[in-house]
């Protein structure tokens, strides 16, 4: 096997082969495997991570198809059923907040809207914002991290202090205070009314993404600091490679693993952050559902209708937990030094 300078295989092939030898416990034939094959093998053996992966994919699929489900009339998140909430204080009638064959998780007090449908569409909002914000963080963080780590010197110092500055801001407070100004500005750039969903989504993505980028930038910078001294970088440089090639062709391929791990860890943090924002009243206009907004309303019903609080709370819990476990599993699988 030839090892071309700058190819990602170069870093871990030796270890992978070595591990493989251990794994098959002294077998004669040494089989070469690509790192991705090894990662897949490790993942398949890790049951918890597999469950988390399946759950995460299920949630993502559900969230992605909810507009289609609503259009087909399979779920109707905005349809009210006043006749189902004629209890005192407009509480749903029946056990567990009005659970019935039509409404699997019961209905919302006050309006009788189907809770399952609202949780699914709420997940769409939450995941859209969280995913876009994470992607935003990854892109900005990677670029700044590579530049900072590779350039060194004054540029590095400036960028690092900037990251420290961003990290020290209380992001939730910033979101709340920036909302009034920024949403209008974004709406006028997008040429949409400020009450429409796109400017509000854009606002949350930009602000959440902005406050998340230093996490990625720091990891990337650390990796780049060690990578830039490696022979293949040296070789590329002495062959006269331009900066752009060094950054994106030589360095970037070595950064995928930590980035992937951090993405799966930051994503659930962003899901919780979006839910917290909805809870505080920032977010999309009704009747669009969001997990945070549902929880915000449900808190006051925690005593008379605990199911209304329990189901959306459980959803957020499972959603965040599965992405977190997936991230943990991926980190273990991608880490050549982990003892498995």
């Amino acid at each position, binding site marked *: 096997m030839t090892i071309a300078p700058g190819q990602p295989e170069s870093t871990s092939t030796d270890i992978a082969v070595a591990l493989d030898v251990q794994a098959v416990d002294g077998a004669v034939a040494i089989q070469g495997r690509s790192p991705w094959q090894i990662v897949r093998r490790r993942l398949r053996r890790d049951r918890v991570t597999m469950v988390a992966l399946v759950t995460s994919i299920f949630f993502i699929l559900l969230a992605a198809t909810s507009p289609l489900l609503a259009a087909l009339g399979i779920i109707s998140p905005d349809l009210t059923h*006043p006749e189902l909430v004629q209890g005192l*204080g407009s509480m749903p009638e029946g056990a567990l907040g009005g659970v019935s064959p039509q409404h699997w998780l019961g209905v919302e007090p006050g*309006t009788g809207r189907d809770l399952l449908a609202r949780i699914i569409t709420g997940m769409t909002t939450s995941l859209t914002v969280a995913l876009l914000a994470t992607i935003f963080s990854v892109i900005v963080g990677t670029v700044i991290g590579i530049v900072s780590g590779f350039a060194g010197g004054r540029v590095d110092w400036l960028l690092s202090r900037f990251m420290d500055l961003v990290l020290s801001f209380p992001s939730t407070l910033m979101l709340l205070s920036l909302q009034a100004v920024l949403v209008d500005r974004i709406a006028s750039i997008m040429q949409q009314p400020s009450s429409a969903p796109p400017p509000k989504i854009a606002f949350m993505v930009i602000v959440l993404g902005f406050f998340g980028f230093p996490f990625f930038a720091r990891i990337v910078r650390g990796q780049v600091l060690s990578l830039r001294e490696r022979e293949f970088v040296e070789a590329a440089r002495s062959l006269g490679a331009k900066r752009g090639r060094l950054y994106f062709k030589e360095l970037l391929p070595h950064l995928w693993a930590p980035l992937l791990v951090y993405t799966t860890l930051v994503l659930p943090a962003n899901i919780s952050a979006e839910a917290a924002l909805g809870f505080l009243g920032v977010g999309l206009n*009704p009747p669009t559902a969001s997990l945070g907004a549902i929880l915000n309303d449900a808190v006051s019903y925690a005593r008379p209708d605990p199911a209304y609080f329990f189901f959306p709370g459980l959803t957020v819990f499972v959603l965040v937990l599965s992405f977190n476990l997936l991230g943990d599993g991926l980190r273990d699988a991608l880490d050549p030094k982990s003892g498995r």
Partner: protein
Amino acid sequence: MMRTKKGATGVALGAVVALAAAACSSGTSTSTGSASTAAMAAKGGTLFILNLGPHNGLDVQQSYVGADLQTANRMYSRFLTTYSTDAEPKLIADLATDLGTMSDGGKTWKFTIVNNAKWQDGQAVTCEDVKYGGSRTFATDKISNGPTYTLQFLDIPTDADGSSAYKGPYAGTGQEHYDKAVTCSGSTLTLKFKTPWADFNQATASLGIFAPARKDKDQADKSLFAPFSNGPYMLEGAFDPAKGGTWVRNPNWDAASDPVRKAYPDKIVDVEGIQPETVYQRLLADGGDDKAAITFGTAPPSVLPTIASTAGADKRTMNVPAPYVDYVQPNVTTPAMSNPKVRQAFAMATNRDAYITANGGPQVMIPTYALCNKVLDCYKDFNPFGAPTAGDPEGAKKVLADAGVTTPLNITVVYRKTATRDKAFAALKETWDKGGFNVTLEGITDRYYRTISSPAMKTKDAFYASWGADWPSGSTNMPPLFDSRVNLTETSTNQDYGYYANDAVNKAMDAAYLIPDVAARERAWADIDEMISKDGGVIPLVNQKFTFVHGSSVKNFQVNSLFGGYADLAVIAVK
């Protein structure tokens, strides 16, 4: 008329419905219930008041919140007139010897101040103190968030910019004008107005505009939490708006000099900063000090089932009419709503039932078609377009089609955002959409009334608002909300959020003011109410109701319907 209502200027507290909501007191000519028997009340004990807070202020000239004015009047600040504690409260004299004498067609009022009222330091309450109290309302730079009727009515010239030539007792500018309009000769107070003010003695009972103030104790804006008492209670130590304070007996108050206050508890402890859900959990649990506790915040709908399922709580619960009316006002300047037929269709497609259900059901609200509260004399039973309370979306669609309007018609409705109102407006939207509209909802949390009255909101098609009459008359409903001449300016719509301007309505209001007979005058306000609704100028939704629970050792728990619908502290007892 007056510029402010509580929600408009100060509080963006949001969460608590009753305390932070609109203006002042409202009246009823009908029911006032009493949950506990009036017998057996005795002096002594400590009453606890549990509220969400923070408290807006204890200075009556800086207060426009119904519950705050009622507590102030019953505990430490006597007004010229007040309301009795009867089941059907009546207007009675308090610091004045009688209800005042009106002459000159309502332009001159005379009151004689009683000679046995005393301040907490033993000095007598004089006519000069009353006059000084009234003068404070002119210091708009220091004394804020209170009623400003005096600036508009008292016979004092205005400057070129429309503000009063008198700038209050602190600046002193224009003092000679005030001294001419308000005079004291001995204990007789004489007030001169520019225009007739026939129900002035009701205004002095509901609002603290002419409550006495001691010049040597006045700290202007710093008096907000440092009241000087002439009632049965005085503040012990400092009052923290976020935490509350303790009131003890005023040794210089003489029960014999007071026509209305019984002052049973020895001590009243005001506790602020408790979430409504927690307040009601504590009141229902009824343990320790909470046995002697009441609250001024109405029970949130999520608490109603718990109240019903708590044994014995029904004896400690009261469901009473509240002064506030929720309404939606279309903006007559937008392309969609400038068409009266569109406004009619919008009104017809309004589903009051869904709104009520989303807010917690019939214990929380009752539907209405009139802006004037059902318990007031200006109420008239009418239905402008014959639509049922659940709305008539089919009829609305037909009206739009007949008018040649392309449907669905895109409109934006703005409302004050809370988790409950998010649901209520989503429910309204459903029927509006069925009726041929495509409604975009826009919830605003911060400084709601100030925001919707700004020119930036002129493009929105309709606004939610809530209003309670300042005193029991249509004159505190129609002109403050729909008189375009006093409301609409370049920089603000003030309280006419929908830019409603109708010469016929304005003329009718001018005429109504001048009707001498009270009953006929209130009927005239009722006709104006109907006139505006028929023009699609406003869509009244509901009359709010309060549900209160009190601790088991509280006696004489009764609400005063003319005084905001809150527990009347004049008669309450804990022994």
